[in-house]
């Protein structure tokens, strides 16, 4: 008997012409770990909401077909009963916590279920212990870190003792360490407690191997169902990007078996692959660097002139925390610098200091040879553009076009065709007259980006631009930033996404406790680092060094027996 079973499920959001889900026939077995993947807008989240009983109850819209939970039609199950059986954890921890303190938050769901005080006390205590939250049980939720908040959201759901846990991109707002911890918890719940887990994820490197089964969705439909390994074999030749880099590598070389973890990959690599020797004098990465470029870089403007230079910069917050300590660096024209580091290492502070939003404590900073703090230059005089983590902070005009004109007017600049140019370049031409709040997440970010690029800035600063993005959107962003660099801008981005940094950055900076602990070309920094490395880098480490990305690995390694490809296909 299946736990969930859907028959010809079709669903339209209110006032929408296109179905968000169609012809969904899916069975989910008890105790399964199911991974649901697909691009933005593919219907993954909608499916999660159907399984959690939120669609159509909460959203309305048109609903066709049937969904059964334990042989009963999910729409006939009492809401309280369903909430006891199916729990859901959402993307953003900020937007699912209700109470002010940790303990009250966990109890909230139990109160809603109408449990007795004794039962509630027992469950709260158990869950606090299991998720190691006892230390913070008196804390205000506002004081917790992002990872702790998401763990609390999980705790609040687990206290309701569901049989099924639906996770809708639970790690998209977390740093890699917290994300790893969350996913490991999910695995433990599945293995030890027998919970059925339905996980929706974008960052597949971390969770691909955890799943028993996988569903690939596109345009509201289920395109593929199978084990992760089967899917990797099926998807790789079709250039579907939703498989981890290791699997993509093996599929790309035409190798017969497709591993999905670094460990398997390393084993297969050593026994089955030869290293292509480098042509002397020219390291192979120069030929393949920049993924999007390929050809020799053409940079306008004087490449020797730094866009920004910092020397011995210090910054301390009013509470005394020295967030920047003795930071010196130069950002040259055409450089794409990725800043990596743990939470609280000073990455965002560095970015805000560069933007001129924070006043230096000590030291000197020059932007294009001028001191931004002097001569009445105020932050944001148009030469530096800054994209914050949340694109919604930018959007308040009635149309996309007006957002761009707003910035232009503030700086007293004429519209010399820059608006048309940017709208075309960022693919926003069709939504020129649309309210930006009606757009999808990826489009909103592009509008925000366009609204700051209208001044043709010399330096572009981005704070975690790839957060919550799927592979396709990341590639688009990467190509766009690379193009901007070629036109002569400098780009600095703060990120936790090592894969993105490896694919598109030219230089990588690692920060820790307010200091720059590593700075150099990406192959040097990421190649030397054990932890800040890509999946491909981890796989090749110790066997062939200096390989970070898929194209590099394909260029350096070749299977011993390419003929096997034809045999086992």
């Amino acid at each position: 008997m299946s736990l969930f079973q859907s028959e010809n499920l079709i669903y339209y959001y209110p006032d929408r012409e296109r179905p968000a889900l169609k012809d969904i026939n899916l069975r989910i077995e008890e105790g399964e770990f199911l991974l649901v993947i697909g691009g933005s807008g593919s219907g993954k989240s909608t499916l999660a909401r159907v399984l959690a009983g939120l669609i159509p109850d909460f959203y309305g819209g048109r609903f066709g077909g049937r969904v059964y939970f334990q042989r009963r039609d999910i729409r006939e199950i009492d809401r309280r009963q369903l909430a006891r059986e199916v729990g859901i954890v959402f993307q953003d921890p900020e937007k699912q916590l209700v109470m002010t303190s940790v303990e009250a938050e966990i109890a909230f769901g139990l109160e809603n279920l109408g449990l007795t005080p004794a039962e509630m006390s027992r469950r709260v205590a158990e869950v606090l212990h299991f998720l190691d939250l006892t230390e913070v049980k008196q804390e205000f939720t506002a004081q917790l870190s992002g990872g702790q908040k998401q763990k609390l959201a999980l705790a609040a759901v687990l206290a309701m003792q569901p049989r099924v846990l639906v996770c809708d991109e639970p790690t998209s707002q977390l740093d890699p360490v917290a994300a790893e911890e969350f996913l490991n918890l999910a695995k433990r719940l599945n293995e030890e407690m027998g919970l059925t887990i339905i996980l929706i994820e974008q960052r597949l490197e971390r969770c691909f191997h955890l799943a028993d089964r996988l569903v690939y969705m596109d345009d509201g439909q289920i395109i593929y169902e199978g084990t992760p390994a089967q899917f990797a074999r099926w998807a790789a030749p079709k250039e579907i990007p939703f498989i981890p880099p290791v699997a993509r590598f093996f599929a790309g070389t035409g190798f017969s078996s497709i591993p999905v973890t670094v460990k398997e990959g390393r084993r297969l690599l050593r026994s089955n692959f030869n290293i292509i020797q480098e042509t002397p004098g020219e390291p192979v990465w120069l030929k393949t660097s920049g993924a999007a470029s390929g050809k020799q870089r053409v940079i306008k403007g004087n490449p020797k002139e730094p866009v920004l230079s910092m020397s011995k910069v210090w910054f301390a917050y009013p509470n005394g925390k020295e967030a920047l300590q003795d930071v010196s660096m130069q950002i040259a024209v055409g450089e794409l610098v990725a800043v990596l580091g743990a939470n609280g290492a000073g990455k965002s502070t560095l970015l805000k200091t560069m933007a001129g939003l924070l006043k230096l404590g000590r030291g000197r900073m020059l932007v294009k040879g001028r001191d931004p703090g002097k001569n009445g230059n105020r932050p944001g005089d148009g030469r530096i553009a800054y994209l914050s983590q949340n694109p919604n902070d930018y959007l308040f005009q009635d149309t996309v076009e007006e957002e761009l004109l707003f910035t232009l007017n503030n700086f007293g600049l004429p519209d010399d065709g820059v608006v048309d140019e940017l709208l075309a370049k960022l693919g926003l031409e069709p939504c020129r007259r649309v309210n930006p709040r009606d757009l999808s997440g990826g489009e909103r970010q592009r509008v925000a980006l366009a609204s700051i690029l209208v001044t043709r800035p010399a330096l572009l600063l981005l704070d975690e631009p790839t957060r919550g993005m799927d592979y396709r959107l990341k590639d688009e962003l990467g190509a766009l930033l690379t193009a901007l660099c070629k036109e002569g801008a400098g780009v600095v981005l703060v990120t936790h996404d090592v894969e993105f940094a490896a694919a598109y950055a030219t230089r990588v900076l690692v920060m820790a406790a307010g200091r720059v602990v590593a700075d150099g070309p990406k192959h040097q920094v990421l190649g030397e680092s054990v932890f800040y490395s890509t999946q491909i880098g981890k796989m090749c480490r110790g066997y062939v060094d200096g390989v970070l990305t898929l194209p590099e690995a394909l260029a350096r390694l070749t299977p011993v027996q390419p003929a096997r490809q034809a045999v086992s296909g």
Partner: protein
Amino acid sequence: MFEQFFYQEKGLFLQSLHPAAALTYLGVLLVLALIFTNPLYLLGLLLVVVLAIIAAQGMATWEVYFRLSLGMMVLVIIINPLVVHAGETIIWWGPRLPVFGPLTVSLEAICYGAAMSVRLLTIISVFCLYNLIIHPDKALSLLARLASRSALVLSLATRMFPAMMRQLENIREVQVMRGVDFNAGTLKERLPKYASLINILLLSSLEDSLEIAEAMQARAFGSGRRTCYRRDTWRPRDSLCLGGSILALVVAFYGQLTGASTFIYYPQLSYLLNSRMTIILLIIMLLALSVPVFMSWGWRRCLYFKARI
């Protein structure tokens, strides 16, 4: 930045009180500050509240409250004699003003103003004490038993507030980088800039609120009768605190009804000590109100005492 105005868990004795006991205590302090006009009684109350604030390690916070109320206190002392002409002991004759009539300052009015400023400080200090010793969730859980929906709205508002302040700062930075200069221009020019800040915050909050509602729905909110999670325990200390508060209240009412604790300002000041009862009642009341302070003191110093209460 505003952290000291919010509750902070320090593991203090006063913070461990049951919310019902602690709220009764604070309520009695507030009521007494409002019914007494006798300067001795008002000063006594202020003393107790300040001692309790010290026991709650909140002197640094109280100083901020004190500085804020100082201006208001001085204002009360100055304005009261100027507008009230009920006193007989005139100590200063001023010019005749068109609306107010002859400007006179009487001793009685100054004394009354001074007593009122002490009352003001006491009331503000009671609120300071509230912030120091009562976890908002505890107060809310008490309220939740009476009015669960209002309590939830309050709780959501308290939870969202710090996040919204942070968000507002982010939006401001973004606007600065887009060329909005918040320091330039006249007030009339600056207002629309701030209005658009609030506008963005509102738009984003509306979008977020839908997600929060969804998360609440997923956790069975509104699916039927709710129960209430309690983790407060009633200890001997709470009975003692409650007993002290009730005793103080009874004594105060007795004093007011018999006139032992009343004080008359106009037209002439009455005697500060009009009977022996005035002193006796004052001492009983202050001792009763100081019970939590004594317990806090003993709790920190005496292990045996700590174990018993």
